């Protein structure tokens, strides 16, 4: 009985270790694949003029089609921030300066993060789903057989588009976030629009702005790389497409959180 139990534990331990090892190896393999994919995409930047129409199309898909959802999220984020910060500041009689705090919070952290989350959910997941479906229906193999690099044809235009669209949406998000906060400040806190925007301009620091935009730009790169990597490595039919889409969103969220922290600490510590 005792020896049976020991061998049972032994076997399960080895199986468990094997599983853990396989998962770790797979993760490293995928990270390596993603880095190489990114480097290859940078190499194909020389073909940007040839792919300009595709880049514009991707910018339209990623940017223009996201404006509505970005506007709604931005306005409500601004309203929530304005309300919560305003209530606290009112206790200290500082509610007049709410515009400065809102602008600072938006440019430094909120806009890059929340706009990235909006784009990951709407565009990143679509990229992963589209590429993984192409992979499953042999379209990627067909491109390879036509001597067309999938990196040049699919990844590079999306990467360039996202590098441009992420910062644009971030600026757009800040603008509408401020409007949402201004509306709440005026209606709930009694801070007039003129006062709100006077202090909002004061909260617009040059460093905070360029660090925020740099974050957005970096998020655009890593999100595209993560989503394309997941899409190109999808396996297992429709189930694989679903898995790739879901994991691309999770990985993108984690990457922007970790990267966001390091960029902040690099510039502000």
């Amino acid at each position, binding site marked *: 009985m005792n020896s049976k139990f020991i061998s049972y534990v032994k076997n399960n331990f080895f199986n468990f270790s094997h599983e853990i090892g396989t998962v770790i190896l797979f993760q490293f393999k995928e990270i390596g694949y993603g880095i190489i994919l990114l480097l290859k995409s940078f190499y194909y930047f020389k073909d940007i003029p040839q792919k300009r129409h595709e880049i514009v199309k991707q910018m339209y898909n990623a940017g223009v089609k996201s404006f509505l959802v970005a506007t709604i999220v931005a306005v409500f984020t601004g309203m929530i921030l304005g309300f919560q910060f305003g209530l606290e500041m009112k206790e200290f009689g500082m509610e007049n300066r709410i515009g400065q705090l809102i602008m600072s919070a938006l440019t430094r952290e909120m806009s890059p993060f929340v706009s990235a989350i909006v784009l990951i959910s709407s565009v990143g997941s679509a990229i992963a789903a589209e590429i993984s479906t*192409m992979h499953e*229906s*042999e*379209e990627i*193999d*067909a491109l*390879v*057989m*036509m*001597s*067309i690099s999938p990196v040049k*044809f699919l990844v590079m235009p999306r990467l360039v588009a996202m590098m441009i669209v992420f910062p644009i949406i971030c600026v757009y998000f800040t603008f509408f976030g401020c409007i949402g906060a201004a509306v709440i400040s005026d209606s709930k806190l009694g801070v007039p629009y003129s006062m709100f925007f006077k202090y909002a301009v004061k909260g617009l620091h040059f460093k905070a702005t360029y660090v925020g935009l740099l974050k957005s730009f970096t998020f655009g790169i890593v999100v595209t790389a993560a989503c394309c990597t997941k899409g190109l490595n999808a396996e297992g039919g429709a189930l694989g497409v679903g898995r790739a889409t879901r994991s691309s969103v999770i990985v993108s969220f984690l990457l922007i959180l970790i990267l966001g922290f390091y960029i902040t600490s690099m510039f502000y510590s």
Partner: protein
Amino acid sequence: MIKFDNVSKSFGEKHVLKNVSFEIKKGETFSIIGQSGTGKTVALRHIAGLFKADSGQVLIDDVDVGKASSSQLAELRFRMGILFQSGALLNWMNVRDNVALPLVENRIGRKKDAYERADYLLNILQLDDARFKMPAGISGGMKKRVALARALVTNPEIILYDEPTSGLDPVMTSMIDDLILSTQERFKVTSLVVTHDMKSAYSISNKIAMLYKGHIVQCGTPDEIKNSKNEIVQQFVQGNLDGPIEAR
């Protein structure tokens, strides 16, 4: 022209090809038949350079596909056209753009010439009316013909057909068979066809090889296969339930 020399390939524990050898001569139409999952498509993908053999060699005009550099491989692939089982057309492009794609993307000649060539092939394949339709708006048979036009657009010397008649009705199957034959006659290409449709295999092939459990069981002319004494071959070509082949 194409030589499979003792090629073996495994995926994990599963040994798909076991020392497979055959040769396809220039201008020949060679079919590989066999049950689903016996490794027919895997063999075809070795020729296309999409898989690398674990052991053995796949030679195209004495160039080892498995050891070819990326530029050599690109050159080899440019001499090939492939018709995938699903057609593998790009869904966001219309039929004409799909066909012209290899020429336009690789900047071979002027764009105008690429589209003229695409129009010429679409005309031969009776797809004039479908030129500006999207792949989602055409039938399965039309998709296969568009994919064939795309495979032919670069004037390839070798065409690889992966299950060209699967999922098609008998009339469309005969039409695709006719197309394979007329393509062979008109463009003098070397063709490899992977199929389990015996009627197609008999009508289009100069030679047929049967793959079973990773081995080539028999390789010969359509008549030799039809009149084979081999139990496995006989059971497969006649579609009998009784015999050494297990239904799976």
